């Protein structure tokens, strides 16, 4: 079993439905030509006021420092397709996101970056979020194969999109190598499609 399948770490609950990628990474931080510097800008406008003074956001709470598992509510990552959002989460230190549902482009971006998105139904997720608040030091043990996690001696179950789970189980969450293998088949489709390219 590869180390992609079992994850561990401490958690933090960032409350909110419909948390959009503009909130995860405000547009002014998209002015970059690489993703390297995005970590500190994560949730910037929620964490800092216009004078860059901390507003005491949960992500900046000392007890949650170093957390690598984020729990949120429904429709996490909606809005803009910017990969800057999952990149910022990852660069900040997150490795797993748990929510009741995810926006699709965001979900796809996370998977490609090797960050599993776990879907957990409301009651369990609420209980887990409450528990994380009580035990910020406790470790998660997440098993993508069994689709369950253990936290503070409690068991929780989650689901994953089949293709995403399969990608992590097989260790191939980045599809590019496999896409490139099909070179000839791609060319065949390009030729078969009766529309030509538009440049001529």
């Amino acid at each position, binding site marked *: 079993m590869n180390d992609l399948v079992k994850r561990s770490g401490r958690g933090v609950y960032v*409350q*909110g*439905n*419909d948390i*959009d990628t*503009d*909130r995860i990474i*405000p*547009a*002014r931080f*998209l*002015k*970059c*030509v*690489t993703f390297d510097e995005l970590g500190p800008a994560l949730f910037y*406008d929620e964490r800092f*006021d*216009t004078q860059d003074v901390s507003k005491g956001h949960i992500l900046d709470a000392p007890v949650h420092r170093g957390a690598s598992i984020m729990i949120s*509510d429904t*429709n996490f990552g*909606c*809005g*803009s*397709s*910017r*990969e*800057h959002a*999952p990149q910022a989460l990852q660069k900040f230190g997150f490795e797993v996101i748990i929510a009741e*549902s*995810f*926006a*699709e*482009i965001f979900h*796809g*971006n996370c998977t*490609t*970056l090797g960050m599993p998105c776990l879907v957990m139904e409301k009651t369990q997720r609420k209980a887990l979020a409450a528990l994380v608040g009580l035990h910020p030091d406790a470790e998660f043990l997440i098993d993508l194969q069994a689709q369950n996690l253990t936290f503070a001696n409690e068991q929780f179950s989650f689901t994953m999109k*089949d*293709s*995403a789970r*399969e*990608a992590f189980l*097989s260790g*191939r969450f*980045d*599809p*590019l190598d*496999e*896409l*490139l293998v*099909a070179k000839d*088949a*791609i060319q065949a*489709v*390009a030729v078969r*499609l009766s*529309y030509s*390219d*538009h*440049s001529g």
Partner: protein
Amino acid sequence: MGKNLYQKVWDDHLVGPLENGQFQIFMGLHLIHEVTSPQAFGMLKDRDLKVAYPGRTFATVDHIIPTVDQSRPFSDPMAERMMAVLSDATDEHGIEFFQPNSGSQGIVHVVGPELGLTQPGITICCGDSHTSTHGAFGCIALGIGTSQVRDVLASQTLAMDPLKVRRIEVTGKLSRGVTAKDVTLHIIRMLGVNGGVGYAYEYAGAVIDAMTMEERMTVCNMSIEGGARCGYINPDETTFAYLEGRERVPSGAGFDAAKSRWAGYASDPDAHYDDVVVIDGGGIEPTVTWGVTPAQALGIGERIPDPTAAEGLDQELMSDALRYMQLEADAPIAGTEIDVAFIGSCTNGRLSDFQAVAEAIVGRKVAASVRAIAVPGSEKVDQAARALGLHDIFTAAGFEWRKPGCSMCLAMNPDKLVGDEVCASSSNRNFMGRQGSSTGRTILMSPIMVAAAAIQGAVADARDVFELEQTS
């Protein structure tokens, strides 16, 4: 049983299954811009890969471009750097780049259709969620992340999960003064911001059939705000008439052949749908948002909802939204004072948007308290508007007429709200901080409603302000 358009296009572009259960899908057209794509060229370089089909990728610059002074170098050094990186990368890889002053620059989702790059039955992708706009032409158009931009550059394909298809039928006839923007805001309000997760939306019904291509683009544009992965409208005579004569569309016999091929992609009458929703078009009012998601919307005559009537987290979210917007529950939305009026974006920055507003505002004046800007979606829109004298009408009314770009839709250029200003905006997102100030407030509405708000200095019913009749 017949097939819907989504299935037909999928089948046509299928390269094969992938090991994780996804499918490899060929991309007919790939559009790129300076914010999400330059990083992908770096990723290619890291792996020593080339662009596989450079003739199928086209670049434009829209998000960071200033709308006042576009001379190089841009005053913002980072914007200049992004522009330079994209320009170098497209040069190096032989990709056509619609530079400023080329006559073809503009917002990526305005440029593709107006050049005729966007065509029925093809797959389109772009590192931008509003790629759904192109679905108006009966194609499958997907917003993607930067790693996927890399995949498409390297292989011209994407790894994809198939979607379900929901047919949304908007029946009947719209009342006078009700626009495509109201239709799309109404649909999102009804189905919610995550109602479309897992779906492609097929828009249909008498209201959609009667729409022009520009109106259809407005509807498909905001599919993503409803959570759908893409949205499309079956190609018909309106589609073909729009495309005929466009720069990148074949002419003569080539056009006739293309047209019959395109028509074949339309959903079969007995096609299967995973879900069908019917909405009465006659019941749609001019719709505006009151909160911080596009689904937090209401008819112009309605009162702002009361969070205490909602439950649990919803109640908190509504209260948060009201607090952020500094609005009161149960108050009418009409009369809410505005500071800025913005007409533009890939939702409503096309020629017909400016035509409709110009017709209404002739001889009227923007309220003294309002800063009003009109930003054409592309150089072609700008030229056509100028040729019709529209920019003079806007300027005389007190609007600033700007150069093309995304502008205040997301404020990555110098066009920004200041402090907690309220903006009546024809764009597509009212998220917190979206328009360049972390406390700025956005009220989404149609261009004609923005114009009414600009003139009144407050949110108003355009039908009253401009004496539009209620029914035609």
